[in-house]
């Protein structure tokens, strides 16, 4: 294969995953958290496709396509909740969501 080895892809995807994870943990807007989750899923997808190429097997790509569909589903549900909350004039800040307390 020409170009970079698979390990460069793996490193890239690891960094992406970490960036996404940091976004989830540090940001408070549910929308941005949702976007960060997408980055994490995409990092995993990159990994899947890279390994699919490594092993010369297409099932990794198949997996990646399913993941896209699943990610879209999560986005639908997540956005649905965010919209519902927005309609009810709730402050969209996960740190301020304190209705549920022990």
């Amino acid at each position, binding site marked *: 294969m020409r170009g970079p080895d*698979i390990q460069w892809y*793996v490193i890239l995807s690891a960094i992406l*995953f970490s960036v*996404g*994870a940091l976004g*989830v943990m540090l940001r408070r807007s*549910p929308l941005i*958290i*949702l976007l960060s*989750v997408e980055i*994490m*899923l995409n*990092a*995993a997808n990159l*990994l*899947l496709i*890279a*390994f699919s190429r*490594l*092993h010369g*097997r297409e*099932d*990794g790509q*198949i*997996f990646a396509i*399913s*993941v896209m569909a*699943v990610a879209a*589903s*999560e986005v639908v*549900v*997540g956005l*649905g*909740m*965010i919209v*519902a*909350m927005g309609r*009810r004039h*709730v402050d969209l800040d*996960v740190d301020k*969501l304190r*209705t*549920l307390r*022990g």
Partner: protein
Amino acid sequence: MINKPHVDWFALSPSLGLIGVSFVLLLVAVLVPKNARKPVAAFLAFAGFVGSCALSVLLYDRSAQAVTAVHDAIFRDRWSALAQVLLAGSGAVAVLISYREKMREEHIAEYYALLTAAGAGMAFFVQASNLMTLFLGLEWFSIALYVLTAIDIDLIGSLEAGLKYLIVGAVGSATLLFGSALVYGTTGQLSFDKIAAAGHGHDVMLVAGLAMVIAGLAFKASAAPFHMWTPDAYQGAPTPVTAFMSSATKIAALVVTYRVLTTAFPHDQRLWSGAIAGIAIASLAWGNIGALVQRNVKRLLAYSSVSHAGFMLIGIAAANALGARALMYYLIPYAAMSLGAFAVVAARERELGVPVTLHNLAGFGWERPVLGISMWVFVLGMLGFPLTGGFFGKFYVFAAAYRHGWWWLIVAGVIATMISAYYYLGIVRAMYFRESAELQLAPAGGAPNRELLLSAGVLICLVVTVGSFFAVQPLIDVARHAANALPL
């Protein structure tokens, strides 16, 4: 040329049947007139779960030989069939509990459709035999559960719980996915058997993948430190949904965890044994200490479910046949106790119209003797007292740990149980030792109406909880046959 794979419809029947019912329920949402929608939908959902339960029993009977079906996508064996029986049973009881729940009438059919879809997803999930079906099954039921948690969209708490559950759940599944990708990268295989056959034990990348897979599954099993969503989601979700989540999700996640670990990673058994033992201890500690300070009963039970995950993980950490048996057996009374306890909470909640706390449980035991005694039995069962299956559950788990040579796990479990006595008996104390008059509690809207369906659900749970104490041997035999499907 496209050669369609042979599809073992029978192996798929428990989940297919349920998802079929779910589709029918979506039609009901449109076709059946509004006033008849609730009973029709509830009945269909109940029938769906019972039917799925029956199919799972048949599947159990006819799957003595463990095989994979539909091109290595799913397992057809007794381990998954038994889990499906439990899942479908929990679902049926959840329907009984749901019936009188106050919720939006116009979405009642969708509610049951999502409930059955979640059940179907779990039934599929426990059969998963490759990393792809594992991930898809997980998402299938998770997404349904996210919506169910948030379904009471008039309550901020419900939406909030749904959103928190979704975010944490999505992170969990992304972790699982990344781990799966690493495993796939190391071995070039997706299916569990072949991952094991590829034999890359102790490969660094595989171990990293394994760790992330365990973390991802631990999110679903709400094992510490991946449990942070549990109290919020359990508290905010409509109580019948909480009941279903607490029992069914735990069944699905733990059964699959054990399956994945033993089937795909037998070479790394020492590693994952240790990791699971660590998670188990963390769950025991966190769950019990967290529960000590709770006043809200749903939240308290949520923390207790974290600690129960810890107990069952002890069975997994033991990594022997006894541990598999212990896990399967433990799940039976646990599912019943957890469903039953939340059902009782639901009854009290409907009666008072406010969240149930230890404070307003006062006098409940005397006002509603049957529910009171049932709750009493459930919490004693969770505490692991004799005369309930919870006792033998703990006993077997300890026995498995002992067989593995890890007496310190027993010590951890014993200490956890001691701590848990405080808050479990606190529930009994709240129900019996105080009068409701003394605290001036009054039912919202007159005397509580008799809820036959809910009481029936509670009684079923009661019978299972107590029955599993007396009928240990038959249940253990069943669990043993189920565990034979695993390469232990």
